[in-house]
Structures are given as structure tokens and as C-alpha cells.
């Protein structure tokens, strides 16, 4: 059964703190994604990775960085958390696409509150 897990369901941090959000998938997928979900704005792509140690910026990368040292794990880092980064963060994965349209499998999300 397909599984994407995220390290925390809820997280409360202070402004200026460094925050790590972790995502693990057990499907041997090549591609992994980090989104943030905000009401009225949908899902916006922060970063994605198509291989170990490879990453590309999405639509809203400012204030974020990522790390992918192992195929199954993709971490999102907020270097210095700010209140405007309060949001729901979703991780997803998908296998290498070879002319097909593959499903994205999502984790349950981490709701981050920055005070």
C-alpha cells in the first residue's frame, strides 16, 4: 500500500526559529514535492526533487530550502521562520514519468503555526 508520511501533524514555532519538516515515502518514487496549502490559494509548489541530491525551485521557494540525501526522504527547511509561513505543508511523491501521467501521492500534511 502506498504510503507518504510526514514527521509532524502539528507544529508551533517562534519567529526566527529554524524549522525542519520531514517527509518519507516507501514507494521507491523518484520525484518528491513540497507544497503549501492556503485557503483560496490552492496548493502552491515550493520545491521538488527528481533524484537524490537534485532539487528545483517551484513557484514560491523564497524563505525555504530543501534536502534530499536519501531517495525516500525529502526535507523542507525554513531557515528563519516568519509569521507569513504559517500554513499547511503537504509532501507528495510520484514515480519517474515515462510518457505517462502519474498520480501524486500525498502525505497527511503538517499544520505549522509561527508565533
Amino acid at each position: 500500500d502506498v504510503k507518504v508520511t510526514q514527521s509532524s501533524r502539528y507544529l508551533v514555532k517562534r519567529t526566527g526559529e529554524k524549522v525542519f519538516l520531514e517527509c518519507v515515502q516507501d514507494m521507491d518514487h523518484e520525484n518528491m514535492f513540497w507544497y503549501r496549502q492556503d485557503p483560496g490559494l490552492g496548493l502552491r509548489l515550493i520545491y521538488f526533487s527528481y533524484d537524490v541530491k537534485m532539487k528545483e525551485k517551484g513557484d514560491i521557494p523564497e524563505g525555504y530550502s530543501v534536502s534530499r540525501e536519501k531517495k525516500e526522504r525529502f526535507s523542507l527547511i525554513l531557515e528563519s521562520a516568519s509569521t507569513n509561513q504559517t500554513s499547511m505543508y503537504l509532501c507528495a511523491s510520484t514515480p519517474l514519468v515515462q510518457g505517462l501521467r502519474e498520480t501524486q501521492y500525498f502525505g497527511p500534511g503538517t499544520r505549522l503555526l509561527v508565533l
Partner: protein
Amino acid sequence: QQQVKQSPQSLIVQKGGISIINCAYENTAFDYFPWYQQFPGKGPALLIAIRPDVSEKKEGRFTISFNKSAKQFSLHIMDSQPGDSATYFCAANPPPRNTGKLIFGQGTTLQVKP
């Protein structure tokens, strides 16, 4: 334009009614249009998807209608049930294809009243 515009933002339907959510896009390079369903406290999950070479796809009570010339597609939920209450996202696949990337719409929160 790498956008998908979704409407309405919220929708209330009586049990047994038809729910309709609309999406529009600009980029004619998109060639895959999935819909994702998200229940509270869960991540989104694929519900149904369509390619632009067909005008309609039906899976149970869920139907996608696709209008290539108008660059619009919509999700119809027939005989809507309280269990359908969720947030729905339309999406499209921007090039290059091998990344698996999707562009999502703004989301529609559907409430089906008993």
C-alpha cells in the same frame, strides 16, 4: 500562462443534488487534467482524470467534462452525498512531462447537506 483557475471557492448542495466545479486554463501544452479530493485532516488523493482527446470521462457518480476549444473542464458529482463533503482541486501538467509536476487550482470546498 502557467495557471489553472477554479471556481467557485465554496459550494453548498443538498443531498441528491448535482455539484459542479469549474476550471479554466490558458496553456494549450497541458495534456492531462486530474481532479484531487481532500477530506479534513488528510492529504489530497486522485479522484478522476482526463486527457484532452476525449470530451467526457465518467467514474461512478463523478464525471469530468472537457471543452478543449474553450480551455475549460469541470467536475460533476451526481446524486451528491454528505460523504462527498471535501475540498476538490483541479490540476494540469505543465511541461516538461518527466517531472510529474502539477499545477493546482485554488480549490473548492463542497458541503453536502443531509
